[in-house]
């Protein structure tokens, strides 16, 4: 019997990026296939191709041995392929039944919605696979884990037999994850096939029948849970093709600058994202926070910088208690912050370079005198920073929207690192940048350290953390799994910690 799903040589290029590079994949009936890889490894692109959202530049797709071409989600659904997106596509104010039938409504008497029929079918599906979903409930009242099951019911209602789950555990609590695993088991037991996208090693090992690891758009290996363990998967996932080297001397740690005690912070969905973290960063050292994204790093940095409320615990900067202080107060205590999302948080894209380099100092001399902006001083500052930080821009008056990503980031780095600060926080400082910009920004961070500032770098890229940091702390599910000295940190040890294995 041919496999349910077979991909051959799928290649997808975005301008400048090779998102998928000749990927082969096979899914047998009743199997769970895990697609494992870091963010940006090409997992989602591949699945979006399968779901008809993107078209591959090369390669073929076979369903039960027949070659198919998928031009859109409706094609995919017709072929029995269904996808649960990371962000649910549910209408919160509608009931489960309404959500499930939406787009495929049962009708009676020519025009009246047949809710009874639909909800009966939903109940059957729910019972058959042990989903325990009440068809009459309103979606917004349901916990996230149940909402996810509603998404699964939507697919089953449309008779999908290949189910793609895109990072399904990212939004779930550990208990909900257990429930999901049970559901997936029950699905495959009754003949459905599942593709499970994840970067969490434990779940992948627990749930899947086969594992395909993607890295930088390529399939780097196919294995089974029996013949692999977290260690081997981690090293496959992280890879070792590029080794970044940052020229730097030994650190000379001084006084404690950033002191975080028992910090608890909630994420966007009222879920605890940082659960009781304590650590210190000293002047003159770079601490790298490693970890798979979504393990509380974003919330940690936002809480330190005053952008997110602290539930409990304490943040001290230079001996001052800045817990729940305003972002401005924290900036004025001598904190620089290179934000994770540079376009959304760090820049006003329609503003000129000059007006962006004073974004958080616009109100102090020399850029302002009383309520008045001092454009000459602003222009002088812009000229100086453009030269000093090598920002490639036609003029200081050019809107930053017209600059490349690397130069946009340099504008932020110039703004943040040119100030005399005692603490520098940098989140994903080099994400998506070219090698030249990466090296430059790394050098600037090291320089800041050598000037005596405390530097905390948050990055999902292990290479970056290893190259930059003097000390590395690894975050996992809102906690610090371990702290390693840069000299004793190996990729394998870090990989294990990142995967939540404490005994590294």
């Amino acid at each position, binding site marked *: 019997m041919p496999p349910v799903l077979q991909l051959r040589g799928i290649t997808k290029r975005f301008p400048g*990026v090779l998102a998928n590079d000749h990927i082969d994949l096979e899914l047998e009936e009743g199997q769970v296939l895990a697609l494992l890889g870091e963010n940006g490894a090409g997992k989602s692109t591949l699945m979006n191709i399968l779901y008809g959202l993107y078209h591959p530049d090369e390669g073929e797709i076979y369903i039960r041995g027949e070659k198919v071409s998928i031009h859109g989600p409706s094609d995919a659904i017709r072929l029995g392929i269904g996808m649960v997106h990371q962000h649910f596509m549910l209408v919160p104010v509608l009931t489960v039944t309404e959500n499930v039938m939406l787009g495929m409504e049962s009708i009676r008497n020519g025009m009246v919605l047949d809710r009874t029929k639909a909800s009966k079918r939903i109940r059957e599906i729910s019972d058959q696979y042990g989903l325990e979903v009440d068809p009459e409930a309103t979606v917004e009242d349901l916990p996230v884990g149940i909402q996810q099951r509603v998404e699964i019911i939507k697919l089953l209602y449309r008779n999908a037999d290949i189910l793609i789950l895109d990072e399904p555990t990212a939004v779930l609590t550990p208990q909900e994850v257990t429930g999901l695993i049970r559901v997936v088991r029950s699905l495959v037991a009754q003949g459905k096939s599942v593709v499970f996208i994840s970067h969490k090693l434990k779940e992948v090992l627990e749930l899947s029948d086969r594992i395909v690891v993607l890295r930088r758009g390529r399939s780097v290996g196919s294995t089974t849970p029996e013949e692999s363990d977290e260690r081997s998967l981690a090293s496959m996932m992280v890879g070792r093709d590029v080794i970044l080297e940052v020229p730097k001397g030994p650190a000379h740690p001084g006084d404690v600058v950033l002191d975080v005690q028992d910090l608890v912070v909630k994420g966007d969905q009222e879920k605890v994202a940082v659960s009781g973290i304590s650590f210190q960063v000293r002047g003159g050292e770079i601490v790298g926070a490693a970890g798979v994204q979504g393990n509380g790093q974003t919330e940690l940095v936002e809480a330190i910088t005053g952008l997110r409320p602290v539930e409990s615990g304490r943040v001290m900067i230079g001996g001052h208690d800045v817990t729940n202080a305003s972002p*401005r107060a924290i900036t004025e205590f001598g904190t620089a912050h290179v934000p994770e999302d540079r376009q959304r*948080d760090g820049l006003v894209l329609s503003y000129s370079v000059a007006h962006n380099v004073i974004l958080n100092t*616009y109100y102090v001399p020399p850029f302002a005198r009383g309520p008045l902006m001092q454009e000459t001083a602003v222009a002088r500052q812009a000229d100086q920073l453009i030269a000093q930080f090598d920002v490639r821009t036609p003029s200081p008056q050019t809107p930053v929207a017209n600059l490349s*990503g690397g130069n946009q980031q340099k504008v932020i780095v110039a703004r943040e690192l040119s100030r005399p600060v005692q603490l520098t926080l940098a989140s994903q400082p080099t994400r998506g940048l070219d090698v030249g910009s990466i090296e430059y920004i790394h050098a600037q961070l090291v320089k800041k350290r050598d000037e005596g500032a405390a530097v905390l770098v948050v990055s999902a890229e292990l290479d970056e953390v290893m190259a930059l940091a003097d000390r590395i702390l690894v975050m996992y599910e809102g906690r610090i799994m371990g702290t390693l000295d840069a000299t004793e940190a190996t990729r394998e040890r870090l990989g294990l910690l990142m995967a939540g294995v404490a005994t590294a």
Partner: protein
Amino acid sequence: MDRKTAAESNVKAPERALGDEADRVRGRLPRGRRRTRGRLRSLVIPFLAIVTALIIGALVIVFTDETVYAAFGDGVGRGVARASSVITRAYGAFFSGALGNPVRIITALFSGQGTQIRRAIYPLTETIRISTPYIFAGLAVALGFQGGLFNIGAEGQYFVAGLVTVFVGYAVTGLPGIIHLPLALLAGAVGGGIWGAIPGLLKAKTGAHEVINTIMMNYIAFRLAEFMLDANGPMARGDGRPVSPEIQPSAYLPQFFPNQIEIRVNTGFLLALAVAVLVWWLLYKTTLGYEIRTVGANPRAARYAGMSVARTVVITMALSGALAGLSASTDILGVLHFMPNAFSSGYGFDAIALALLGKSHPFGVVLASLLFGALRAGAQNMQGIAQVPVDLTSIVQGLIIVFIAAPEIIRKLYRLRQPVASDELVTVRGWGGA
């Protein structure tokens, strides 16, 4: 999908930057001249929008003129001749009503006779008079746009400010003009400012959308004015008419031609120009203006930069309301000298058009206001001489907004090239935005 566009823009951006770099190396136009050319180009769409709207207006006039149909009955040539004479007559009256007759102005100037000169420039003075409240109201909406807020409440703020101004104008007596006039103006600004700040506060505190709340505040203001100025209302004159008492002469805005009552243009216009400069200065030269524009352009970045988004929203709405309030104050202190019950002017709603037309820039708003003032003044004359209803102006104004808001139509019509992205119109995010 997002991922794709992100990937694309990452790549496009350096190319663009490179292109600019290359331009600089090749030494094309110097930066200054390029910028002027860019500014000129940004005027093309508004200009064509106005022209197109006027052309459609002309077509409306022709198609609703029976004499044209009658003439076409006598032959096509006759018909065309009649149609063009109808348009010439109507638009002739329109332009001379808006700007005056140039020949007459020149002869009058050469004659040196005061009466003649005043008669000749009368249309121009009317245009300026009408544009005065427009400038204030337009600035009010434009300031809101700059701060990312849609102030549909200018009309209501105008009413409340009118009530407050007129009250200070007639109830406060015995003050010298130098104190009374500024006091009355200030009262209007404060009244309008408070009326605008309330929806701002609601937005800052509860996130309630300012579009809904400013509309609701409009209704409250309309009914409040109706109640206060009802024939028996608390602010009525007391002679059975639904109007307020006359204000004290000490609160009058000085006229340019105090002996010529028919020329109604007054120093309110100078005040309007001064306030436009002030708003420009506030927006582009002060830290508060920088905060307002940052909150308008990217509230997340504003928060990151340590600005208080809530405070800025309240301030922006209060300032916007104050500007709308001054619109009423100048109208009452400069022209009407009392407040009638039926005060509806539509200024507050036209102001949205003005802000759009002026691309939310204070000087653009001044130009747009002069245009709308001219449209109104010209239409009066057109109705008097050519019997074309004044309401043609609303049609033309409506069309201008449509064309400015949907420049694609104009571009298609005149086969213009696509613009650079930064030419985008400044309005509000969220609601109804793409």
